[in-house]
């Protein structure tokens, strides 16, 4: 018997005088309360059934615009399933939100780095994708898939989607290409540009570049004291730690800063807007891969369908061109057109052997101590 029928029978009993007015409204109230209470759990039950919308969270700005225009709108048109797209300024902030949410509230996230994949796994927030529902995954570079499989060998919770680097962005009016190549990562601690240097207020990026500035392997920093001194030196010469891609672009475009490390796609977007901003990946520049991570409790069939749609060659290329980040599609299998091979960090071999990625075990192992220490260092300690 459905709820409407139950209500009609109850109303009939009330109208016939079989139950009092007080009992009638009491039962209605109880039904409402019971419905309200079962909703959080119903969300999980609905996950397996009919789905009218899927939530997707990404980095905002040009990245989200490209998703909306080239992936979500066509997907909604094709399937009728609405994609609600939210944004976050950083992976840490988003993880905090997801931890505090009900299962199923957040569905797919555009996560950065294999270390994020490992973190979600450690917080038991990972799902299990049915790869049979994502045939377009066959076109993804094995190098990107293997990074995730090293953490969850028996299953995958995410589909690799794009990759890029956090290299050095500089204003060519004030810093020449030659000077940039000569100084490399050390330009971020150069007194000559004091007050005109920026940096992401992210402990991983700060420590990664501190490792490069002190001549160490970012995935095996032996002299952490020297690295922290480099972080302090950068803090003292920096004008500001930027907090989002939009702020990074604004600081460079407005010439508040002349040099910073920056996300390859965002810098390319600035160049396309006509700003004379150079981009240089120093040796062992911070490489990362981004994925479409499906969070536990999500409607799996709808999420898998959306991911498959997003990995479709035409969609993937259109999104990549819009975001200015190379897609995860294997360039040896798929013709990526003319623009993508010109994007920063693009690897025509499909092996990504030229990029240095963060070792998830190493960086997640140091997260508790280093994130806390950075909080102090950036305040002058």
């Amino acid at each position: 018997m459905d709820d409407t029928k139950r209500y009609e029978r109850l109303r009939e009993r009330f109208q016939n005088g079989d139950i009092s007015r007080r009992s009638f409204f009491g039962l209605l109230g109880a039904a409402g309360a019971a419905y309200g209470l079962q909703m959080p759990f119903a969300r999980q039950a609905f996950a397996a059934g009919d789905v009218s919308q899927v939530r997707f969270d990404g980095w905002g700005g040009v990245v989200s615009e490209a998703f909306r225009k080239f992936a979500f709108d066509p997907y909604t048109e094709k399937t009728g399933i609405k994609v609600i797209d939210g944004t976050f300024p950083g992976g840490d902030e988003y993880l905090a939100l997801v931890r505090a949410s009900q299962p199923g509230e957040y569905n797919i996230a555009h996560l950065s780095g294999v270390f994020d994949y490992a973190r979600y796994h450690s917080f038991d927030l990972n799902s299990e994708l049915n790869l049979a529902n994502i045939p377009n995954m066959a076109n993804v570079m094995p190098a990107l898939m293997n990074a995730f499989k090293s953490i969850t060998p028996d299953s995958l919770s995410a589909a690799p989607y794009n990759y890029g680097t956090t290299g050095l962005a500089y204003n060519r009016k004030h810093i020449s290409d030659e000077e940039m190549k000569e100084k490399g990562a050390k330009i971020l601690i150069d007194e000559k540009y004091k007050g005109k240097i920026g940096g992401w207020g992210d402990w991983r990026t700060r420590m990664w570049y501190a490792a490069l500035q002190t001549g160490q392997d970012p995935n095996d920093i032996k002299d952490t004291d020297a690295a922290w001194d480099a972080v302090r030196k950068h803090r003292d010469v920096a004008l500001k730690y930027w907090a989002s891609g939009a702020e990074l672009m604004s600081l460079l475009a407005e010439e508040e800063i002349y040099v910073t490390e920056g996300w390859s796609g965002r810098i390319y977007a600035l160049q396309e807007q006509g700003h004379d901003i150079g981009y240089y990946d120093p040796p062992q520049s911070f490489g990362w891969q981004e994925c479409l991570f499906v969070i536990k409790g999500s409607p799996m069939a709808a999420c898998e369908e959306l991911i498959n749609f997003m990995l479709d060659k035409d969609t993937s290329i259109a999104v990549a061109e819009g975001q200015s980040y190379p897609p995860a599609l294997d360039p040896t299998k798929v013709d990526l057109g003319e623009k993508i091979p010109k994007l920063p960090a693009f690897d025509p071999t499909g092996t990504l052997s030229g990029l240095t990625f963060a070792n998830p075990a190493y960086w997640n192992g140091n997260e508790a101590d280093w994130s806390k220490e950075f909080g102090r260092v950036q305040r002058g300690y």
Partner: protein
Amino acid sequence: MSIEQREARQPWILLTPALTAVTLLLIVPLMFIVVYSFWLKSAAGADTPGFFLDNWQEALTDSFYRDILLNTLKIAAITTLACALLGYPAAYFISRSKGNKLILLVLLMLPFWISYIIRTMSWINILGVSGALNSAMIWLGIINEPIQMLYNQTTVILGLVHFLLPFMVLNIFVSLDGIDTNLEDAASSLGATRWQGFLQVTLPLSLPGLAAGGLLCFVLAAGTYITPVILGGPRDAMFANLVYEAIIRQLDWPLGSALSLLLLIVLGVLVLIYNRYLGMAQLAKGLG
């Protein structure tokens, strides 16, 4: 039920929705935060429930937190002082203006129609290297190169004053508006100059409003988070930023809970001191 009993129950019936909302939306979440502050963060995965004093010990003994807390209180105090100095003349002018008082009050409320974040970010377009002020000074030939004015403690205070000034003006205005202007005339008739009349009659009578505005500005400034993020440099953090970092960046919810409670306790003590000497009635009047 007698009429007396019914009348005694009536206030509680009317208060029930508000008390329920306060309990569910404030007291219960606060209790969660209290409980969380005694848990421990694990290296990865879920936190460790229990009764551990580690977070409180760290929050109370670590000089890092003490220094940032003192700096936060200092910034809040400077902001409050600046708001008082700028707000009093404005409130006096509005309260003594004839006819256009309503228009001036509406103008005072206008900034609230724009998002606080947008209002804060507007300073970037004013004080930035290619902002209005630098462009104007270069155009006038006062400077050759743009001056770096943004991203320091001064701009943080400027942003806070911009945000909080209307609160101060409104509170002082309420106080000044309630003062009988005949008292100033009486002081003049007794030989006092206008300045003496202001100092010895108007100012003392308006002090409750000034104090209420001061308390509001101080508490709001001490708990601010977004202004130092947008207008501050690398070192310009306030205590709320540490709470944010502990909870969001470091995923250390137990320590973040202890830090947020510490800030709440410090500000709560200040409110209690205010209440002891001035009473909360004036604050309610100012807010109303």
